[in-house]
């Protein structure tokens, strides 16, 4: 049986979901027998692989770059998993939404900055006016709420997908968990 | 005032009116007044005075004559000449024509038009004929005779039987059988019952109740008093929106006059029956037309609906058994008692009896107030009475029932106007607003307009209506602007389904109707908008702002 081609992506989020992923600890070794990690912040691939079985997305879509990335990833992924509250609900990153991009930038880089005041330069991705959950941009196949979802939940999701089943998350996780 | 005294007063007033050879009826309902009817009336009076013709001709302010688009209207009686778009400068010509006995050609409006011929006036029989500010005039036209006859010659059960036989159904929109409602309240053992008249007409484009109240307020009071006698109530409220100052003023005048004449108040006509009516002003919330919200508002609380049951007949105002009917429903009652329930039941269709007053508005030649027998087709209303669509444009749809109703396309124009047929088309009778649209109207934009209304008028109590109407509006706005994607129509449909089945009151339950009916009959317009095109050419590039 060929191993599941797995990717993990980190968009607008705190990386907590990836930390929770690592919290699978020794089960990671077991998992490695079933899945092959083809693209991730943990590995050094440069280009997102064409044919990916499962992609775990952490984080919301907050920049044009995020949006472009998630569209490309969606096109190359069979099962897209929104992992964690930022991907599922836009969560904490979306707390700037009622105020808009400009207010968020000036609060962070001008009002509260003590040195080198001024918004970031053009070399980093430009914030969109609204942060959105992944499914508002592309279709999502599995939603795994949680902030972050527990290692146990992530393991269950991957085990089910590796076994060719769609995970049933009822009672396993919740918003904010 | 007893029945004998009433009949004597009527005869006396009629004799007085006969002493004057002719009358100039000037419409003083809101529409003609806003077009300058008040100045016209003044100019005519002055002109007659200056010519010393006041004993020959009298000027009388009357209620709505219907053809509002030709206002200000003046009718010369007894000849029946009708003049439209009259200005104060026309006063000399009009007075001169009275002497000559010939109409003023340049002002004449033909009364032989289908607009007049195809109507059947029951509720509006006095509108345009009696002076709404004079009780004597109403009495001369036979007013209050039904009430006094009921009090002296009929038992409450007999009154209810007559109303039941008539087949009258609620004219506020839902069409609940009036006789059944009355008998439910009558059977309540409650010693302290109420009769409420719902005059909180709030649909955009609707002005039927306003016209009735401005044209013939005593008729509504008489209907309420008959209802109170039949059900055993002693107190009544008229809940009327404060945006109708003229209707409110005329109602208050009418109540004062009727009380002074002993036709309202304690021991009416020397019988043990007492009935007091008060006017309560609505502060401009559409939802207060919903009966439970209306009662909360009368009680001085926030006007939000509550779940039914209990229905008002069981637990209404301050927990007491309460009868709530709409203005037009009450206005039908005196005629039903006068002519008999069976007479009334001959008019209309199998399930919908009598007539219906409609406010004809939108892209139609003759806008105004009409009363037609139930069962008439929409085509007759729009193309014969209404005179069709102006400027050579094509008819597209007619909207009935306001924000709770739906749009009906051309292929269903031969549908008879009755409660069931309109509901089967995804619309509703509603209180009587009828808005005609031509090819230049974008149906998506129209749905957005009504949802903007419903969103703003939702009281916010129940979740589906409060949040759902806001989402529906936002989604429609995106579609109109060409910013929506393919999945949007499915979301519109599931939200509409949710609102219809889970909202607390009629506002939320019927708020999706404009969306559902336009999706049903004009889906291609939605689909074109998803591709950034407006088939009606109404929404500019990138959509209408």
């Amino acid at each position: 049986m060929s191993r599941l081609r797995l990717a993990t992506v980190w968009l607008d989020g705190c990386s907590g979901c990836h930390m929770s992923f690592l919290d699978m600890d020794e089960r990671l070794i077991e998992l490695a027998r079933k899945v092959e990690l083809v693209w991730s912040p943990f590995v050094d691939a440069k280009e997102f692989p064409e044919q990916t079985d499962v992609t775990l997305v952490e984080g919301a879509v907050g920049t044009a770059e995020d949006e472009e990335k998630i569209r490309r990833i969606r096109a190359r992924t069979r099962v897209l998993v929104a992992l964690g509250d930022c991907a599922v609900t836009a969560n904490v990153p979306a707390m700037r939404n009622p105020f808009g991009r400009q207010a968020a930038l000036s609060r962070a880089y001008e009002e509260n900055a003590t040195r080198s005041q001024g918004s970031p330069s053009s070399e980093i991705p430009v914030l969109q006016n609204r942060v959105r959950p992944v499914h508002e941009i592309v279709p999502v196949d599995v939603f795994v709420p949680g902030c972050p979802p527990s290692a146990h939940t992530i393991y269950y999701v991957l085990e089910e997908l590796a076994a060719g089943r769609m995970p049933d998350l009822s009672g396993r996780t919740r918003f904010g968990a | 005032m007893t029945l004998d005294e009433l009949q004597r007063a009527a005869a006396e007033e009629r004799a007085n009116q006969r002493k004057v050879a002719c009358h100039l009826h000037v419409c003083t309902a809101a529409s003609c007044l806003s077009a300058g009817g008040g100045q016209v009336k003044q100019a005519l009076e002055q002109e007659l005075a200056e010519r010393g013709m006041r004993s020959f001709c009298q000027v009388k302010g009357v209620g709505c004559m219907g053809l509002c688009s030709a206002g200000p209207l003046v009718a010369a009686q007894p000849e029946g000449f009708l003049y439209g778009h009259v200005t104060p400068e026309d006063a000399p010509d009009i007075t001169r024509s009275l002497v000559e006995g010939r109409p003023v050609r340049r002002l004449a409006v033909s009364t032989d038009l289908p607009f007049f011929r195809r109507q059947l006036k029951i509720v509006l029989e006095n509108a345009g004929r009696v002076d709404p500010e004079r009780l004597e005039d109403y009495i001369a036209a036979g007013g209050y005779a039904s009430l006094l006859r009921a009090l002296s010659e009929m038992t409450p059960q007999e009154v209810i039987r007559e109303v039941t036989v008539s087949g009258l159904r609620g004219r506020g929109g839902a069409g609940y059988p009036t006789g059944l409602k009355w008998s439910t309240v009558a059977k309540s053992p409650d010693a302290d019952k109420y009769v409420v008249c719902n005059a909180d007409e709030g649909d955009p484009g609707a002005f039927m109740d306003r016209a009735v109240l401005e044209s013939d307020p005593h008729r509504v009071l008489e209907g309420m008093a008959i209802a109170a006698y039949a059900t055993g109530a002693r107190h009544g409220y008229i809940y009327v929106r404060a945006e109708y100052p003229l209707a409110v003023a005329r109602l208050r005048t009418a109540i004062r006059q009727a009380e002074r004449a002993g036709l309202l108040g304690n021991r009416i006509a020397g019988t043990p029956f007492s009935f007091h009516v008060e006017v309560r002003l609505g502060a401009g919330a559409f939802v207060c037309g919903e009966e439970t919200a209306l009662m909360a508002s009368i009680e001085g609380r926030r006007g939000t609906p509550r779940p039914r049951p209990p229905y008002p007949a069981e637990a209404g105002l301050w927990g007491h058994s309460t009868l709530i009917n709409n203005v037009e429903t009450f206005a039908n009652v005196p005629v039903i008692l006068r002519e008999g329930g069976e007479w009334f039941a001959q008019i209309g269709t199998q399930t919908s009896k009598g007539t219906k007053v409609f406010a004809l508005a939108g892209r139609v030649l003759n806008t105004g107030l009409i009363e037609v027998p139930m069962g008439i087709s929409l085509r007759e209303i729009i193309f014969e009475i209404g005179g069709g669509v102006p400027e050579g444009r094509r008819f597209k749809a007619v909207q009935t029932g306001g924000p709770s109703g739906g749009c009906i396309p051309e292929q269903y124009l031969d549908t008879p106007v009755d409660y069931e047929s309109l509901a089967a088309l995804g619309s509703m009778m509603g209180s009587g607003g009828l808005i005609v649209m031509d090819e230049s109207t974008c149906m998506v934009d129209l749905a957005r307009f009504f949802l903007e209304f419903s969103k703003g008028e939702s009281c916010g109590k129940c979740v589906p209506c409060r949040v759902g109407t806001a989402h529906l509006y936002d989604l429609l706005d995106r579609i109109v602007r060409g910013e929506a994607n393919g999945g949007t129509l499915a979301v519109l449909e599931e939200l509409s389904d949710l609102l219809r089945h889970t909202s607390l009151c009629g506002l939320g339950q019927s708020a999706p109707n404009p969306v559902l009916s336009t999706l049903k009959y004009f889906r291609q317009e939605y689909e074109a908008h998803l591709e950034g095109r407006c088939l009606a050419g109404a929404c500019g590039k990138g959509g209408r702002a």
Partner: protein
Amino acid sequence: MNAGIKTLKIDGRDVSARADQTILEVARENGIFVPSLCYLEGLSPVGACRLCLVEVKGASRLLPSCVTRVEEGMEVTTRSERLERYRRMILELLFSERNHICSVCVSNGHCELQSLAEKLLLTHVHFPYRYPRLPVDASHPRFVADHNRCILCTRCVRVCDEIEGAHTWDVMGRGIEARVITDLNQPWGDSESCTSCGKCVHVCPTGALSEKGRSVAEMAKRRQFLPYLTMMRTQR
């Protein structure tokens, strides 16, 4: 035969009830779960959240079980594919209405909205979030009102009026603009009618009303007082 006792069927189970009981009360007595948010035992029911809608055989509409009295021979269905779908959508409407960020909420883990979402298997909200800009009123010395987390269940309004008798809370505005207010929309801290009893805070199903000084997930609500208070008043 006692006319005051009714027998009916809920989800196919035969149950008996006093004539003055509602479907919801009887269902819960019998361990049948019916979701609700605006209902709270001890407060007058208002039928506003629409989560407790049930199907009653012969009724043309879905009925709010919190205000619908039992009737002899009634056949009630509390769970069906349609009801579950509607309930999930209503929860989605609530989540999308304001800014509910469970992960940073004082009531995370103690919130009725959050736990209902979990129970009704709501994994995501497919309606667009509205992100309104709403105030947080921290003017009261002991409590905070965060309108971002309010679901307008009006439990605070009712407990303040019906139990405490202060009627500090009420609702203002219409539709999507509706908000709970203290006094005549004055800051809570300036309220002259508020007795600072804290009942509103503890009946609030979410983190909208909380005690000051609580951090994320620390605001558990204590509601045990309510049935006792009502009982003491009505049965003494």
